[in-house]
């Protein structure tokens, strides 16, 4: 029984970390309809900035997180202006080509500038160590990630479903020229949403760095994982992504405990099963 609880806690923590890192992708992919394979690259940039701020400059963790988010957004602004703006509404495969190209470039540059070694982001003492749950201990930073995940999920859901910004964003995506004909400044809406998505990527990259450490190949190494959880959840749906992360996190964790040698099989069979039952993802928006 204790083991069951213990696995459940691990699954929750793992799922939430996945959620924090990939939710930004749900925004770009589901709401802006850009298959943004460079999501991981932006998360990685965030990680590098945070690592540089906290480790090399000795700034505090909080400052490092803010620097990472702001810095990544600043880097992303010209990228959005000159590259992404060209592929909004383009066929998915064209978007794949462009964003893979961007990813390659960012990897190459990161490798050149920071070298191929792992970069860590030192945690503040408050997040180090483990918390005692009674039946087991859990690293404090994972609790922190769970909280961050919940906060992000709530905030984002509100912004998308309840604010006029959210309505205008969804309208622009459905039919940009019609939205424009109704007076919506789609370019600004897009740029803002992209900034939010990239900011979330950077934030997730930093918060999740304990689990997915920052190194140049990060951008490609976890690309598939992000893509899978977002699509299984139903791109663009915050609750969907949350459920998918918890579900897949749970299956992955349990599978890895019970039969580690078949871990991959469990995970991907579950993915296939879920999509066969929910062909548009768990909470897919109908197109």
């Amino acid at each position, binding site marked *: 029984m204790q083991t069951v609880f213990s696995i459940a806690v691990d699954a929750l923590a793992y799922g939430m970390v996945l959620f924090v890192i990939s939710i930004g992708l749900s925004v770009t992919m589901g709401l802006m309809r850009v298959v943004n394979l460079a999501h991981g690259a932006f998360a990685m940039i965030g990680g590098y900035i945070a690592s540089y701020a906290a480790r090399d400059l000795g700034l505090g963790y909080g400052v490092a997180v803010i620097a990472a988010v702001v810095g990544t957004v600043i880097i992303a602004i010209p990228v959005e202006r000159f590259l992404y703006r060209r592929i909004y509404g383009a066929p998915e495969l064209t978007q794949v080509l462009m964003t893979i190209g961007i990813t390659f470039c960012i990897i190459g540059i990161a490798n050149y500038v920071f070298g191929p070694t792992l970069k860590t982001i030192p945690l503040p003492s408050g997040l180090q160590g483990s918390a005692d749950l009674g039946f087991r201990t859990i690293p404090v930073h994972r609790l922190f990630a769970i909280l961050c995940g919940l906060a992000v999920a709530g905030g984002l859901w509100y912004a998308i479903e309840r604010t006029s910004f959210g309505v205008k964003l969804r309208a622009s995506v459905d039919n940009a020229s019609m*939205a424009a004909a109704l007076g919506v400044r789609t370019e600004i809406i897009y740029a803002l949403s992209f900034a939010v998505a990239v900011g979330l990527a950077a934030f997730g990259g930093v918060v999740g760095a304990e689990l997915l450490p920052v190194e140049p190949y990060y951008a490609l190494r976890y690309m598939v994982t992000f893509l899978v959880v977002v699509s299984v959840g139903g791109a663009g749906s915050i609750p969907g992504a949350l459920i998918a992360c918890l579900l897949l996190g749970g299956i992955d964790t349990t599978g890895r405990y019970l039969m580690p040698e078949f871990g991959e099989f469990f995970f991907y069979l579950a993915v296939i099963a879920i999509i066969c039952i929910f062909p548009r993802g768990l909470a897919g928006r109908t197109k």
Partner: protein
Amino acid sequence: MPATPLEVENLSAGYGPTRVLEGISFSVPSGARLAVLGRNGMGKTTLLATLAGQTKRYDGTIRIGGADVTAMPSASRARKGLGYVPQARCIFPTLTVEENLFVGLKGRPKSALEEAYGMFPRLKERRRNLGNQLSGGEQQMLSTARTILGRPSVLLLDEPLEGLAPVICEELMAAFAELAKTGDMTILLVEQRIQSALDFADHVIVLERGRLAWAGTPKALSDDHAAVERLLGVGGLH
């Protein structure tokens, strides 16, 4: 005397390399109701779309309320008071009816939605439905209501009656006439049912292969049997 709501000079436009419109010029006085007629594929939709800033313009100028909007993107023209109801309806499929209307509000308070519901009670019943779940006629109502909510000073209507029940058509045409009269709204109407259009309008232009082939009053057009036969191809039908 307010500035002329819409002036078009020597407009040429099209899609990519294909030119569809050629040297179109006309202007519409305030509160006017202009019918744009023409046979299949003659460029009516292209004309309205170009005015709304949605197709490629090669040449010419467009002025709204005296201001040159030729270089402006679609959204800015809308903010200058241009309203466009496209032929394809362009409902936002993943938004609910209410959210669709909300986009058209242009910053007016949410309570203004009631205006739309007053015009089309059917929409109120369906207000939580997603756009792509609506029937053809309901989509048409939504598209029209959405644009009117923004209180445009120039309203471009591309076949707004398509797919609507006869009762609704009558009510809607009456409502448009009312808007033009009291709402200080200038209306351009593209319509296939020539009689409805002529009943409604006080000016008519006819397009023929992308060029302005005829301009005048409805009465003059009705009397000009040759032109009707040649340009609209319906002479023999009645």
